[in-house]
């Protein structure tokens, strides 16, 4: 019996005999279902007892193909070709049976009336549980094994298995819920599904009108959103590049400070940046008042609208561009630049013809992320949007506004997706198929070329004032937590921190009585669980996309971007609708929040690892494979150490995004699993700025600490450079 057969057999046995087939109340990890009582209970019984004791005969077929596959491996195994075919056919059959039976029969009995004669009237089933997960995993393994035997992806079982599982997960947790929601753009209660319903909604002048060019009216929301997204992508990419150049390529003395300032906005809940901007530049803001009093001009509410949004989004998303670009700027090989200079090019020419083109994938990725983030940004749009219309806010209003209209929300979401899709494909074309490899096995003897004076001074001019501005914004945030009531009672107080995080001695025991503790601990816990999962799935995806060839790669790549590109509110609603009942029943658990975090944030770690990997010479891993370490060993020994910045970036980013996301989770939080951001937004709505800013400040400190710890633990990659040796 080989290892694979054994694995399959064990999985089959535990899913048949031990694991509860349906979802169970309470935590799976408490293992309370391992007692004899639970085996006899209808809700927690494993598969075998489900069809023996509880007459769920329709569950019998789900295990049969696996039995067949295992039997074939054990007894009739002849040659690889037949084994492959048997594995593929039986596993596909098994997957199909599990999925079909779970859609035929739900919590409420049969889902389709024509089945009423087949199933008895009182038959029903709960959402799928761990037993089902184990069985699905077994089928995916056996499917991957089969197609790898057929030579798919050069027969690399590890890569094939990763790909199959990731595709399956993306299908279940991204496509299924999103499709479920988007289809509603075509649905009308009076008409049913119809194309004309969709075109009526989609073609609305509210979305596409171009009247603003001809008269004073407002333009369609699609155009205003696209314009804002382009401007934000441009400004964040340029500023991110400036920061990255200053940090890596100059002798600037306060690099550390600059790094901190460039990363601060990313660890801030989005509405905090908006609120601080208002405290500074709003109608009654500090700066506005000072200017009004000194020059006697009424600035008005310019901050509400395009300018405020652009400013806030640039503040919020420059760090993402920076995080993407720093790895790329560091990775540009100095010896190429040296070669260029030896051949007589001056520093300007070297920069424009060598350095900049080599950074193309990074620039394109940074631009794409800025564009997509701006498109999907809801926090700033709600705080600062004013009368400037953007799609994300419109979608929010059509889901949770005065006139709840899911059809309208879905058609707006489709509009948004069209823009994101186009941006994605334009980026693909622009980056093209050129080679950007600079880190090769040969080591690099170069010293980074000096930046042309124009570039370095431009970078300084961008990065330094921007850091100062960020610094001021954060000073406002810090102060806000210590002021009793901003603008009304400016006395200093610790009251807000005490209200939020009080700990008392009650009956000789430390009890947390502050209002923030519950949501705070839950948030940190869930974010910590989601962090390694997100990075892992993201990095594996990035590896598959940049190292392995398989048909339909571009579609796969796009599908990983999908959940990121869709506004959080749509994801939130789609999760509630899709995962509320059998077959997948996850609402009111912590798991649904973790899944939402993982699949919403994985694309950043995909982007980061792809950008880093495109600079690594594939010769490195080929050498490793030639020397006998297949699949995972090469990844662990060669690739992971070389893409450490990407790992750090994706870990940090996932942790932070989990803590700061609002719109997606507002529909998913429950009484037991409340999140910090949802709690804070409640406080903000109540105008309790003091305590909400105090809470946010604590979150910022925690995230900053996490950032430092993670950087310390993972460390920097070691690329051999002469310049470093000389130091």
């Amino acid at each position: 019996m080989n290892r694979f057969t054994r694995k399959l057999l064990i999985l089959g046995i535990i899913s048949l005999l031990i694991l509860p087939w349906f979802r169970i109340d309470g935590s799976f990890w408490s293992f309370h279902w391992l007692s004899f009582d639970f085996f006899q209970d209808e809700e927690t019984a494993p598969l075998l007892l489900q069809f023996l004791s509880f007459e769920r005969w329709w569950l019998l077929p789900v295990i049969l193909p696996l039995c067949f596959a295992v039997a074939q491996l054990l007894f009739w195994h002849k040659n690889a070709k037949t084994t492959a075919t048997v594995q593929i056919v039986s596993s596909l059959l098994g997957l199909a049976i599990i999925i079909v039976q779970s859609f035929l029969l739900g919590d409420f009995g049969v889902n389709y009336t024509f089945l009423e004669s087949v199933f008895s009237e009182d038959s029903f089933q709960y959402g799928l549980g761990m037993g089902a997960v184990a069985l699905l995993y077994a089928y995916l393994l056996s499917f991957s094994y089969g197609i790898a035997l057929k030579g798919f992806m050069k027969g690399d079982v590890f890569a094939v298995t990763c790909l199959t599982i990731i595709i399956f997960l993306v299908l279940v947790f991204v496509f299924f819920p999103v499709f479920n929601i988007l289809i509603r753009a075509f649905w009308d209660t009076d008409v049913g599904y119809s194309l004309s319903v969709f075109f009526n909604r989609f073609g609305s002048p509210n979305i596409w009108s171009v009247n603003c060019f001809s008269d004073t009216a407002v333009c369609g929301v699609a155009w205003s959103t696209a314009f804002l997204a382009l401007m934000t992508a441009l400004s964040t990419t340029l500023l991110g590049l400036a920061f990255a150049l200053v940090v890596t390529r100059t002798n600037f003395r306060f690099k550390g400070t600059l790094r901190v300032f460039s990363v601060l906005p990313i660890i801030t809940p989005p509405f905090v940046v908006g609120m601080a901007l208002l405290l500074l530049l709003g109608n009654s803001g500090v700066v506005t008042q000072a200017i009004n009093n000194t020059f006697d001009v009424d600035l008005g509410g310019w901050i509400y609208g395009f300018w405020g949004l652009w400013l806030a989004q640039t503040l919020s998303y420059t760090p993402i561009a920076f995080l993407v670009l720093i790895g790329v700027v560091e990775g540009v090989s100095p010896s190429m630049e040296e070669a260029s200079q030896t051949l007589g090019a001056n520093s300007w020419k070297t920069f424009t013809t060598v350095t900049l083109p080599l950074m193309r994938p990074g620039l394109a990725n940074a631009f794409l992320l800025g564009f997509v983030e701006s498109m999907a940004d809801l926090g700033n749009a709600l705080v600062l949007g004013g009368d400037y219309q953007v799609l994300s806010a419109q979608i929010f209003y059509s889901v949770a506004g005065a006139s709840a209209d899911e059809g309208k929300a879905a058609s707006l979401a489709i509009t948004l997706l069209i823009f994101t899709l186009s941006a994605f494909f334009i980026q693909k074309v622009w980056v093209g198929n050129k080679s950007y490899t600079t880190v090769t096995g040969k080591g690099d003897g170069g010293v980074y070329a000096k930046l042309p004076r124009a570039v370095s001074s431009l970078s300084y001019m961008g990065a330094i004032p921007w850091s100062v501005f960020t610094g001021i914004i954060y000073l406002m945030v810090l102060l806000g937590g210590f002021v009793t009531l901003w603008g009304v009672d400016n006395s200093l107080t610790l009251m807000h921190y005490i209200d939020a995080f009080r700990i008392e001695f009650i009956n000789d025991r430390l009890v947390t009585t502050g209002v923030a503790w519950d949501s705070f601990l839950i948030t940190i816990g869930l974010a910590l669980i989601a962090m390694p999962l997100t990075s892992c799935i993201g990095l594996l995806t990035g590896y598959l996309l940049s190292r392995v060839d398989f048909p339909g790669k571009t579609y796969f790549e796009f599908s990983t971007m999908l959940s990121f590109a869709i506004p959080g509110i749509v994801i939130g609603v789609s999760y509630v609708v899709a995962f509320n009942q059998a077959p997948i029943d996850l609402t009111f658990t912590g798991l649904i929040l973790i899944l939402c975090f993982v699949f919403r944030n994985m694309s950043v770690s995909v982007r980061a690892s792809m950008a880093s990997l495109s600079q690594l010479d594939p010769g490195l891993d080929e050498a490793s494979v030639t020397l006998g370490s297949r699949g995972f060993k090469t990844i662990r020994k060669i690739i992971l150490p070389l893409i450490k910045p990407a790992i750090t970036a994706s870990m940090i980013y996932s942790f932070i995004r989990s803590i700061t996301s609002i719109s997606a989770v507002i529909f998913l939080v429950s009484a037991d699993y409340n999140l910090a951001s949802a709690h804070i937004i409640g406080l903000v709505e109540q105008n309790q700025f003091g305590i909400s800013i105090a809470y946010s400040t604590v979150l910022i400190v925690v995230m900053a600490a996490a950032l430092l710890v993670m950087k310390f633990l993972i460390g920097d990659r070691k690329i051999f450079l002469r310049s470093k040796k000389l130091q």
Partner: protein
Amino acid sequence: MKILNKIMLTVSILGITVPSYAASDMDYLKGLSGEMVSYCSNEPGPCAALIKAFNAAVAEANGNNDFKAKFIRLSTSEMISRVKGELEKSAAAAKRKCKNITDAAELEVCKEKVYKSKVDIAFHGTDDPYRAALGDDFFSPFDYPTGADVQPWAAGITKDSDGRLGGAYLGVLGFGYNTELLAKKGLSVPACWKDLTKPEYKGQIVMANWNTSGTAYKFASTMMQAFPGGEKEGWDTVRAIHKNIAQYSKSGSKGGKMAARGETTIGIGFAHDIISLKQKGFPIQLVLPCEGTLFEIGPIGILRGAKNRKAAEAFALFLYEPSTQNILAQEGILSFPSNVNTVPPEGLDVLKGVKLLPVNSYYSEKKVKGDIISKWTNEVFPLPR
């Protein structure tokens, strides 16, 4: 036009009666156990205080800690869209399974059996989204108190909804102006909705976006009904006021807050918010418009298929108790309580002279509401100001 279901309200409804406070013994709290999950659409402070009070009362009545109530706080419209996501499959299944039943009582039993809700009860917030959701059939009928102890408008929402909603409090729509700013700019004191159309207030008014806020829709339906010229005159007024708007805010209470802080001169919002701001010392004055105005009710709705139906019913009754309704005022929510025995919060005397428009359920219908909001979005909002 349909025959409208109207409840005529007179000024006397708000006449403050002398409370005859009788502590009821709250028998319904006995024997509760397990867990009750609720959606609360009030502000976080009052939500926590109410749930805490309920837990304490149940623990006292039973002498044990076997029961625990929890809440999830969401704004009313967010909450309703979440309930919709959670219960739409239940509703579809009920339509299929109970389609052959004609008897009303049997139909209720069937629905109660089919629906599966993880949340037991939703309470407070504003009534429009609750009423609009009645058509989707998420709330279960219950014997909400409608007797002599209960204000007629609260009994009215129960009657309107065929017993599916209760009413806990009432708030009146109006607007507030910043007294200092008004004097400084030399503007006249507004007294009516029509005054807000005067060109002198150009760029001085803040109200909520109709797409985002229940308060704004309350304003919309007020405009449709307050004038002798009916909807047409209403839309003309809306267009004229639009020219004076400085900003459309997201939240309904923002206008009052901005006026209080001097960020705008006039803010449209609910009277209790403006009174509360005035009591905090801001220079703001409440105006109850001369043409009349509408009000909101803080509803209570038990969800169909609630897991802990018994606790949900007990909590619904608990929300009518004077001792419970007092908690709102202690938490700074100055709305008008639905139990005649509750002492209304201080400062609500000004509401005595208000002219209330009759409730017209036509404007709560989902389709009508959607049409009015999209007409505003497409025809009024893009107009230059």
